[in-house]
């Protein structure tokens, strides 16, 4: 334990002496294979984003927007270039009276350059499922959904304000005061 570091490979299993009786005989003229360790270059932002390049992605932004587009370029800060982007807006069920199911609509936005700090997450879209509506949601008119979304935002704002005020009275400070993450 003393001088092991966390990036060391795990110790060999005990109770199986190398080349001892019962163990594997050493292969003549060839050293044993080095312990399996993943190459360091796998653990860079670049390597993670490289797999996603030219794929259709869902990008969730800090202000709650959801963008669907093809990732064409990026850098180490997760600044992104998205092609053929659509913004998808959702409204939860129950926003309007007599609206038992959620609604969504797409707006064409074209080319996007997103500054990295505004990115929450990027998700690769399963192409088998991309044309299915999310469970419980139906496609609707853009204007209808936009209006409902506006309403919803107003409702949430009021709720959030109340919550923050209540917490502040108890001496708590919100993690994202003044900014609603969705």
């Amino acid at each position, binding site marked *: *334990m003393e001088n*092991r*570091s*966390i*990036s060391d490979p795990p110790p060999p299993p005990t109770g199986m002496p190398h080349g001892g009786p019962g163990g594997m005989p050493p292969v003549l003229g060839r050293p044993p294979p080095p312990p399996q360790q*993943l190459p360091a270059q*796998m*653990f*860079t*932002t670049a*390597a*993670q*984003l490289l797999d*996603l390049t030219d794929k259709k992605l*869902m990008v*969730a932004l*800090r202000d709650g927007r*959801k963008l669907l587009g093809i990732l064409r370029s990026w850098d180490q800060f*997760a600044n992104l270039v998205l092609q053929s982007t659509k913004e*998808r807006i*959702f409204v*939860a069920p129950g926003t309007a009276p007599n609206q038992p199911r*959620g609604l*969504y609509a797409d707006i064409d936005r074209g080319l996007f350059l997103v500054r*990295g*700090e505004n*990115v*929450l*997450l*990027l*998700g*690769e*879209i*399963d192409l088998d*499922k*991309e044309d*299915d509506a*999310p*469970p*419980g*949601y139906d496609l609707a008119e853009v204007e209808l959904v936009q209006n409902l979304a506006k309403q919803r935002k107003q409702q949430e704002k009021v709720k959030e304000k109340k919550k923050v005020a209540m917490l502040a009275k108890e001496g708590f400070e919100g*993690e*994202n005061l003044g900014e609603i*993450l*969705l």
Partner: protein
Amino acid sequence: MLFFSFFKTLIDHEVTVELKNDIQIRGVLKSVDQYLNIKLDNIQVLEEIKYPHMSAVKNVFIRGSVVRYVHLPANAVDVPLLEDATRREAANQAGKGK
């Protein structure tokens, strides 16, 4: 760098990442980088009905800056080793400060 190394030891384990917007995503940890950006495979979103935009997504890249918690599998963490490493790192940092 300690937690970067620590997360690297958890590659291929199933973890749950909770973001600052309360969404919880469970998946297999595939990669991590110096900013603790996290890549998860085969994801499953808790309370999926609240997050319709995630329904067609199979793997995600999460920006490290928006992560609140990472829930780890207890049996994948060598606690004494981590304690040890943490103390050593702290000692190193203190040494550098002088």
